[in-house]
């Protein structure tokens, strides 16, 4: 009271009257932050905070996590199962029995008429690991379709494929603790401050303690690029050339770790012969990074002692995404930077449980990183599940991105989508719109009934969300963490596990199979399948209680282990046949759509921190959504001046696919010949993208497209934009 009133008034500060904090794990990205949700007297979730004792986030949360308690009451949640004979009719509310009976009957009908694989199932990276395992069991063991994949094909497929090609198995070998030990960090197409702010904070903490070079490869001047010691503004789609050239310099100058190469890698000679073609002078002409910089980075990296690489969608979402990942692995193998503290190839994963689906969903094969192509694996799982091994296909079926073209041309007649929204997330939205209308039977299972893909479905199943359920997620650093049941399922929505189990009952194989009812029961079953001396994915030493106690445990955690292992391949032994990692020669083929006279701009797409995926969640929370409530496009001011385009005006962007209306944000963050549009918004960026597929991972290249910019009547544009935003 230095100034103001003489009599003190009561100070009022918002009090949410929290009576209990409940532990769970964040349901957005793969960082895997531990959250405590505050519950008030009425039992309502009213607050979120980071769990201070958790190693991953150490009490911090990003903007999305801070408001995650609001998720339970977001608009647009599905309340009852809905059904209609045809998508042109109105939905009618139905009960669960009717819905599941009808669904089973339709699946069987389509399979009888067109063959087992004519019904496709596309899942997600969002649901719990136990649910993934059960869905895989239902799909592979009871329904028996081979056209089953996750939407993780859009985000992590290239990392999975690259890891498998290099190391013989999936699984990021490093962890966040590597930041504390590394002497050089190379980030490819990964903008941590925007995409994974908590991982950025862990990096920042490490950098404040100890200085080491941060090198960022990104065509945009992202915050990470701006803060980097070196920023390499690369030409889109040419990372492989840069990586081959880095390897060229290292081998050329004898900077490689010859002992490690000899002891732990295959095919060095073939690799060496290939990278010999990528001298920095030739490479600089393609990738746009000058030869001095290439040499400088190569020397820094090779001489660092402990050097690590991270990457995200800048590598994965390209036509050579898998090759890019392998090339990063190559770089780390020749410098001996795998399996050591501060030396690793760490893919920064996308969805909260992208890892869970990779490990246990059977999308790409059989659970626990087992392969359909491997007869022993088929027999082991068939016996374990109690079915005939001949029921399994001998080779994995179509990837997610190949399932849609198969629907388009009629090979696939039925589709079941689980927590995925291809109407907004897949490239070339108009093609997807056309495709989804060709289905005989289409089920959407999602927490939100207003998810855009549901408009073409026959059936909508309301799923429970996040901590309305109980189970586990695995994060980027292979840490299994617990999602505990904080709130009861909304309305008549049901946990995905319940839905899978109930549907399983309606298939013949259910008689001989066992589908545990509880998540913990499923987890115990997964533990049995994870045991094995040479198996990296071993969770047999974990239990729900132990995971909660330690606020997450990394695998492998073998039976009897106190806790998990931070890193894989520390002994230089890999999951390949001979135990050595593969050095793979990777010739660069430039097959991208490139800007030309008609479409003179690169279109780059990406993420903003306040939104998650197709905004079905964050688009409804004002305190996230308000930072970008409507689509925008970053554009270079010089290019805009030449076209007469003004800041904060609408333009029409046209590609060879279709068009989109966006508001222009002028910034020198991007080059003259490029524009950037966040992908989150429905009927926007993905109307323009081509999404050429990676030959190995079948992941689409979202970030390399060509567009032109046209002026548009401002009122018409505003109206069109408004009509595209139901949330």
């Amino acid at each position: 009271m230095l100034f103001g009133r003489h009599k003190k008034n009561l100070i009022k500060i918002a009090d949410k009257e929290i009576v209990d904090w409940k532990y769970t794990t964040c349901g957005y990205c793969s960082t895997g932050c531990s959250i405590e949700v505050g519950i008030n007297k009425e039992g309502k979730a009213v607050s979120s905070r980071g769990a201070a004792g958790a190693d991953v986030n150490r009490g911090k949360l990003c903007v999305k996590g801070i408001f995650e308690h609001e998720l339970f009451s977001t608009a647009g949640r599905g309340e009852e199962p809905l059904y209609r004979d045809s998508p042109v009719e109105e939905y009618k509310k139905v009960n669960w029995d009717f819905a599941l009976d009808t669904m089973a009957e339709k699946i069987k009908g389509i399979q009888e008429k067109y063959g087992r694989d004519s019904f496709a199932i596309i899942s997600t990276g969002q649901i719990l690991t136990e649910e993934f395992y059960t869905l895989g069991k239902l799909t592979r063991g009871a329904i028996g379709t081979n056209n089953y994949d996750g939407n993780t094909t859009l985000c992590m497929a290239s990392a999975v494929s690259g890891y498998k090609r290099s190391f013989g198995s999936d699984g990021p070998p490093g962890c966040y603790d590597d930041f504390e030990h590394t002497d050089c960090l190379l980030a490819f197409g990964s903008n941590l401050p925007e995409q994974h702010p908590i991982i950025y904070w862990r990096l920042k903490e490490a950098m404040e303690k100890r200085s080491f070079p941060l090198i960022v490869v990104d065509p945009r001047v992202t915050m990470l690029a701006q803060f980097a010691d070196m920023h390499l503004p690369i030409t889109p789609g040419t990372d492989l050339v840069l990586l081959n050239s880095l390897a060229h310099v290292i081998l050329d100058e004898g900077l490689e770790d010859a002992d490690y190469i000899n002891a732990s890698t295959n095919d060095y000679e073939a690799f060496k012969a290939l990278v010999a073609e990528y001298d920095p002078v030739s490479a600089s002409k393609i990738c746009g990074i000058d030869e001095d910089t290439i040499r400088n980075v190569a020397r820094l990296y090779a001489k660092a002692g402990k050097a690590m690489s991270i990457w995200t969608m800048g590598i994965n979402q390209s036509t050579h995404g898998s090759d890019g990942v392998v090339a990063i692995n190559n770089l780390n193998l020749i410098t001996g930077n795998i399996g050591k503290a501060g030396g690793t190839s760490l893919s920064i994963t996308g969805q909260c449980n992208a890892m869970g689906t990779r490990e246990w969903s059977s999308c790409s094969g059989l659970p626990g990183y087992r392969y359909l192509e491997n007869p022993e694996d088929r027999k082991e799982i068939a016996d374990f599940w109690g079915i005939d091994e001949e029921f399994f296909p001998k080779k994995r079926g179509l990837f997610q991105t190949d399932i849609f073209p198969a629907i388009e041309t009629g090979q696939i007649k039925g589709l079941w989508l689980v927590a995925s929204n291809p109407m907004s997330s897949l490239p070339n939205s108009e093609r997807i719109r056309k495709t989804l209308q060709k289905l005989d039977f289409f089920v959407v299972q999602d927490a939100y009934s207003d998810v855009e893909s549901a408009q073409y479905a026959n059936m909508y199943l309301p799923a429970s969300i996040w901590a309305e359920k109980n189970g586990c997620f695995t994060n980027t650093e292979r840490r299994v963490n617990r999602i505990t049941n904080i709130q009861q399922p909304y309305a008549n929505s049901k946990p995905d596990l319940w839905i899978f189990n109930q549907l399983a009952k309606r298939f013949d194989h259910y008689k001989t199979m066992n589908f545990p009812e509880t998540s913990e029961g499923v987890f115990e079953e997964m533990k049995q399948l994870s045991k094995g001396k040479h198996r990296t994915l071993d969770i047999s030493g974990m239990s729900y209680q132990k995971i909660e106690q330690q606020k997450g445990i990394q695998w492998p955690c073998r039976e009897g282990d106190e806790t998990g292992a931070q890193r894989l391949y520390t002994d230089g032994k890999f999951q390949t046949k001979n135990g050595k990692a593969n050095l793979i020669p990777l010739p660069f083929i430039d097959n991208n759509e490139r800007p030309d006279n008609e479409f003179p701009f690169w279109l780059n797409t990406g993420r903003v921190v306040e939104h998650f995926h197709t905004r079905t969640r964050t688009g409804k929370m004002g305190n996230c959504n308000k930072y970008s409530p409507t689509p925008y496009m970053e554009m270079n001011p010089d290019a805009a001046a030449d076209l007469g385009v003004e800041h904060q005006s609408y333009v029409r962007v046209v590609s060879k696919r279709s068009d989109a209306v966006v508001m222009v944000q002028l910034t020198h963050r991007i080059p003259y010949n490029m524009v950037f549009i966040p992908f989150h918004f429905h009927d926007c960026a993905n109307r323009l993208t081509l999404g050429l597929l990676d030959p190995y991972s079948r992941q689409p290249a979202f970030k390399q497209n060509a567009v032109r910019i046209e002026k548009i009547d401002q009122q018409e544009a505003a109206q069109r934009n408004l009509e595209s935003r139901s949330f």
Partner: protein
Amino acid sequence: MFQTREEERDYAFLNDKSHQPVNRYGKSIELVSESDPLAGKTLNINGDTFVSDNPNRYKQHGFHFTADNCIGCHACEAACSEKNDNPAHIAFRSVGYVEGGTYPAFKRLNISMACNHCDNPVCLKGCPTRAYTKFAEYGAVLQDPDICFGCGYCTWVCPYNAPQLDPVKGQVSKCNMCVDRLEVGLKPACVSACLGNALNFGVIENTPENRQQAKTEIPGFPRTDITHPNIRFQQTKSLPPEMTRTDSAAVKYHKDQTDGVYKPIVDKNKRAAARKWSLKKLRSREDPLVLFTLISQGVIGAFMLLFLGSLAGVQPLVSAVQSSAYLPMLFIMLGIESFALFISTMHLGKPHRFYRAFNNLKYSPVSREVAGIAMFFNSLLAHTFFSLFDYSITQTLATVFAYAAVITGPIALYFMHKIYRIEARPFWNHHQVLTAFYGNMFTMGTLLTGLVFVPVFIYQGQSVIALLDVLAPGLITGLLIEGLGHMSHTRYLKTRGCEASVSYYEQVTTFGKTYMARNLMLVINILVAGILYIAASESLLVLGVWVMLALSIIVSALVSRALFYVLVIPTTMPGAFFWKNKGFEEHARESGLAQMPQVGVIADVH
């Protein structure tokens, strides 16, 4: 009592081991001694009588922001809004940015800003209701929404856009320094949430661990001499000489070659240089104030003219006051002034708390203006009442109250002008406000008198020329005072630099045609009034021209006053592309996007 998390980490705890004796402005950092009667008391947070043993409880605290590190991730804003349970359209802390350079040599500087709990809290001084208190505990400037009546004056005077006026609740709220967390030794929620290691907090002038600077200037942050804000910065990485804003304000920041400080200048790229009318944009939330100020000035002017004129024996005015039309004239003045007071009261967020306007006569020009206007109005009312009777005592009382009215009226207008002399609003902070208000007193006063008494004189067969001869010089004087004020104001705007020059740029571009038209009307009005004065005719044609002139003066005055409100550009923080961008807010309202509450823009603010 705030509950600390289990296993709370070091970053969340306050850790000031020592402190400077005085801050850079020479003010003691220790606000009161341990033995002071103010010390050792509970803060009474939500009725909790807990008294903290925080050893630095009576020292001025403040934020420290390492601008080099901010990644613009919104965690601070989110943590703040989550803790304070704020809806999307209200934020105690906001992050905006400035950027500069050419790709790829490009730099973006994010700025996270909340309340700076200033040494000189202009919000506290400006608030008419005394909703603000600067506490001895931590030097926190806290505002009580339950006292506030939503006039929004604190949002005008604050250079940092810290107080937030909620159009839905009709009240202001702001950063409370998380004093509940400070009481248990924790840093504020925003600081604890920071993911760039940019935001910090502690005893003011202390440089946090691993930081080298505690300076008061970064590009985009307003000058600190107005309020002596309790915020310190580190910004060591060099930036391009010119940093632009992404929001719609036509402001950018240019590095001064002599002192290296970034100063606000006009960003001509933001607005086409073309002169426009932008008549629709003349309407604003302050529309009621346009009418309130003009009417009050007119009524005061008219009463002074009639009373002082008749007192001086000016014949036409003596006969006006003695005519049977005088009482109706008094009622007209009371009527329109009542209307003016009504709309200005309804303009408050909580009109039913209007009586609180007098609470801060010690500091607030708003309180003083309201008191002045109230005294004038009541004097006029009393004068009118006593003028109804014919006794000598009532006549004496009527005269006494008339004197009271002519004394309080101009004083009220002086304080009305003081309201706008805000350092954080350079467009207003000029004597032109006074010339405009007093000029209008003359102009509108004579106009109002003429509008009533010219018809009366015609009806009564009296000489209209004699009356016009008296009124015209008053009219011309008022217009000249206003005109000269505008000329001086224009010179000031052109040379003042900062946001003043930006307002000037808006004046001659966005409102260029409107502004020129106003100037032209002012000149024409003066010339026509002069010609009519010299012509001294009461032909129907001349009277017709007088009527046209009256209309022209009214239109010109309305446009002029509307421009006064819409052209002001405060020394606020830079916004982001959507959030805290006035241009986007306008677009969201016009396009209908604001109908979705999650857009964070209130659809209707009028």
